[in-house]
């Protein structure tokens, strides 16, 4: 079993697909947040977890962190660090969603601008989705040898490659 996992982690095609899928997902995810930051800010408010002074800053910055991480993964520019940042973000998302699930809290303001555009969410669905993305980030972070189609290799979390 351990050997199979190691073989999978060292498979260049597996790493490439995980990297591209993760990159594409986060570029796509960042798009609507960048176009409509006011709506995204409302989503953040809906978690009832963040200090009011930080909500707009998160809404402004977070989508671009996702976008740049996604681009770095697609182009192969320091992919280990991009995947590491995304996995740290995903850990934060998973924690936030879990807290709201435990609290039984789900934000729905009953607003047109929210519900009609698909901003209402099921915390359970998002949680499962984020766990899958987190797992997809692991082979990118731990990939130990030269990656395929990569502009700037840099290596894995364990060692540098030049």
């Amino acid at each position, binding site marked *: 079993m351990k050997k199979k996992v190691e073989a999978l982690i060292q498979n260049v095609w597996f790493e490439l697909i995980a990297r591209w899928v993760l990159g594409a997902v986060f570029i796509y995810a960042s798009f609507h947040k960048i176009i409509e930051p006011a709506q995204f800010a409302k989503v953040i408010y809906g978690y009832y977890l963040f200090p009011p002074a930080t909500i707009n*800053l998160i*809404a*402004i910055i977070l*989508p*671009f*962190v996702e976008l740049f991480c996604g681009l770095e993964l697609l182009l192969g520019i*320091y992919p280990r660090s991009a995947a590491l940042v995304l996995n740290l973000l995903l850990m934060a998302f998973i924690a936030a969603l879990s807290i709201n699930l435990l609290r039984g809290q789900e934000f729905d303001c*009953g607003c047109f*601008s929210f519900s009609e555009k698909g901003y209402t969410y099921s915390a359970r669905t998002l949680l499962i989705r984020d766990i899958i993305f987190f797992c997809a980030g692991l082979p990118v972070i731990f990939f130990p040898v030269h990656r395929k189609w990569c502009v700037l290799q840099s290596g894995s979390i364990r060692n540098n490659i030049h």
Partner: protein
Amino acid sequence: MPVRSIISEVALLLMLAVATAFFVNYFSPNGISLVGQWDPNRGVISAAPQTDAIFHELELESPETAKKIYDGGTAVFIDARAKSFFDDGHIKGAFSLPLGEAGNRMEAFKNKFPHGTYLITYCSGRECDDSHQLAQILLENGFINVSIFIDGYPGWTAKGYPIEKKG
């Protein structure tokens, strides 16, 4: 573990992302302020975008104020929520004009209500700004007497004021 290499890569990534984020937000027509209004006790929550639809001077600050106008019988209450919410319950005598349908139904609405009619929009309370957006649309369509009841349907029902349901 090559900590220094990773820290410098992450720092470069974050600096680029943060700089681009502020640059785009500053020049985007949909850009938002650095700090929003997220306290429902102070009014309707909003990221206070640079092109904000919120007109604070039009807001009725309490259910009591809205009820006084309601009792005066001079105003028409306009429900900005989706039709399903309206059918489940609304301010008695209110007219349904869901924000999402306001564009399509505006001509019929104009034929029904003269431009001088006192219109009070409302939606689902202080976590919802549909009533503000609807008020803006009404003003753009020539209605000159528009107010916004910011506590909306939840604030109205909490006071036990008259409501009605479909059927």
